């Protein structure tokens, strides 16, 4: 775990992630400017650090209603604005980027941040960026696999010799600068299927699993498939971190949390996916078994500990800013996380 900068004796890590969505507040119909949204994301990272949150990450989505397409640039600003919190991408679409450039960027962010940068590499759930960035959608799978492999190779080797199908070969290429401690933690982002998780297992890399809805039990099965595949391919699963990501919203009471969050998650889904979040399904999110962490701080603590028991994971990433959620609500959530949720989670998950 040290290779991935995770100290399990401190217990489950808690992080925040944003996709950088830029959606009008459904209650007012008004949308803040792109500039304000970006500045608020940077500020959010600062407040997360002050609250003792372990990790903060920003994703890239190249489509309407998003604002952090240049997510590594935003992360660079966060690197400068913070001191201790670990920072990363969630995720970097490696399929449509040159791994050399991505590595140069993140190694630089690592140096600016004094060794706090990580990469979570994913494939994108949307396809518009393939056309936008000049790639062929029919190479969807092959692009990711080749570029992810190259990214891992650059991380392991200072002098790279490589050839593939989607870019010119590298001959004795020195990829500079190097990160502060020689390498970066690089995770594979995984959607909700076991076969996708198994690919992270084959490569023996950390897995960041999107757990966006439904009962927690289904994600346990996926995590087990990942660990078993890693074991069968000669890797030690106990040395490989697992992270989960999902919707989060805390308030004084469960009812208040549900009431406050629903319009945002519903509108966010409508605008980015086309279909809203069914009320019936959201009502089930109040149940402990649902993987959505919404409720009072006590309920959320119970949920996260229940998930910890099932998954044995090392990091949980919360998405609470989806759908145009106003900044004051986010600040309130950070306060609840820092004063109530984090102390309880650490108390129960830290190795004594």
């Amino acid at each position, binding site marked *: 775990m040290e290779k991935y900068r995770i100290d399990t004796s401190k217990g489950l890590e808690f992080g925040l992630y944003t996709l950088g969505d830029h959606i009008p507040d459904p209650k007012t119909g008004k949308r803040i400017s792109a500039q304000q949204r970006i500045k608020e994301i940077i500020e959010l990272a600062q407040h997360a650090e002050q609250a003792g949150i372990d990790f903060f990450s920003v994703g890239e989505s190249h489509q309407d209603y998003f604002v952090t397409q240049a997510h590594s640039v935003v992360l660079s600003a966060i690197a400068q604005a913070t001191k201790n919190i670990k920072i990363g991408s969630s995720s970097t679409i490696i399929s449509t980027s040159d791994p050399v450039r991505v590595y140069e960027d993140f190694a630089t962010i690592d140096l600016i941040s004094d060794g706090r940068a990580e990469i979570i590499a994913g494939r994108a759930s949307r396809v518009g960026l393939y056309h936008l960035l000049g790639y062929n959608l*029919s190479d969807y799978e092959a692009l990711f696999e080749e570029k992810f492999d190259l990214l891992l190779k650059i991380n392991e080797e200072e002098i790279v010799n490589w050839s593939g199908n989607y870019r010119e070969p590298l001959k004795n290429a020195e990829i500079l600068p190097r990160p502060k401690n020689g390498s970066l933690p690089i995770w594979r982002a995984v959607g909700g299927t076991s*076969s996708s998780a198994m690919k992270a297992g084959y490569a023996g890399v950390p897995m960041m699993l999107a757990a966006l809805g439904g009962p927690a039990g289904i994600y346990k099965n996926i995590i087990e498939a990942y660990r078993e595949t890693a074991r069968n391919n000669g890797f030690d699963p106990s040395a490989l971190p697992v992270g989960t990501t999902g919707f989060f919203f805390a308030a004084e009471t469960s009812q208040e949390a549900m009431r406050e969050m629903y319009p945002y998650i519903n509108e966010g889904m409508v605008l980015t996916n086309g279909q809203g979040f069914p009320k019936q399904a959201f009502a089930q999110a109040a149940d402990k078994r649902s993987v959505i962490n919404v409720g009072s701080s006590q309920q959320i603590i119970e949920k996260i500990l229940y998930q910890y028991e099932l998954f044995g994971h090392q990091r949980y990433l919360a998405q609470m800013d989806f759908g145009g959620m106003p900044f004051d609500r986010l600040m309130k959530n950070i306060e609840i996380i820092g004063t109530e949720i984090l102390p309880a989670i650490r108390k129960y998950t830290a190795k004594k």
Partner: protein
Amino acid sequence: MKLVGVSGSLIGSKTSKAVFEVLQAAKAIDPSIEIELIDLKDYEVEFVKGTPLSYYNNDTVKVVNTVSTADFLVIGTPIYQASIPGALKNLFDHMPMDVFKNKVTGMITTAGTDKHFLVQEFQLKPILTYLKGVVPSANVFVHNNDFNENNEITNPEVNNRIRLLADEMIFLQKSLSGRDKN
């Protein structure tokens, strides 16, 4: 004797890999068999529009002719919305009546969940039998998890089923050959 494999997916490479494995297995059993893989991803097949075949583009003509003149076939399908893809159905829509008469038409499915196991039985098989294809008792269902990181099928049970399918298809087709096409 020519065996044509059809991969009915326009996305990814698992289905075409699975079909290719059946073709290889058949070749290993009887090296005299000629094999050809039609991967629909590689062709721009037009939707059926009701005109004679000569009015379609070259890809459509090539694919339709290769499939309709094969001695026997193995059809590979992924699962889209609990059925076969529109692209594969379109290929069947291009076929003349009774096109698979006295021809063995094997089935191999790739899917992300075992819950789709019966789709080939209830959605694909009735179409093949309507076209008068002889569907063997053996069939193959390949879960995405049966592929390794290099897109190879590593589950020995699946590979065995592929061999059994190829074996039965060859046996049935040899028994059928020379039978009056009318």
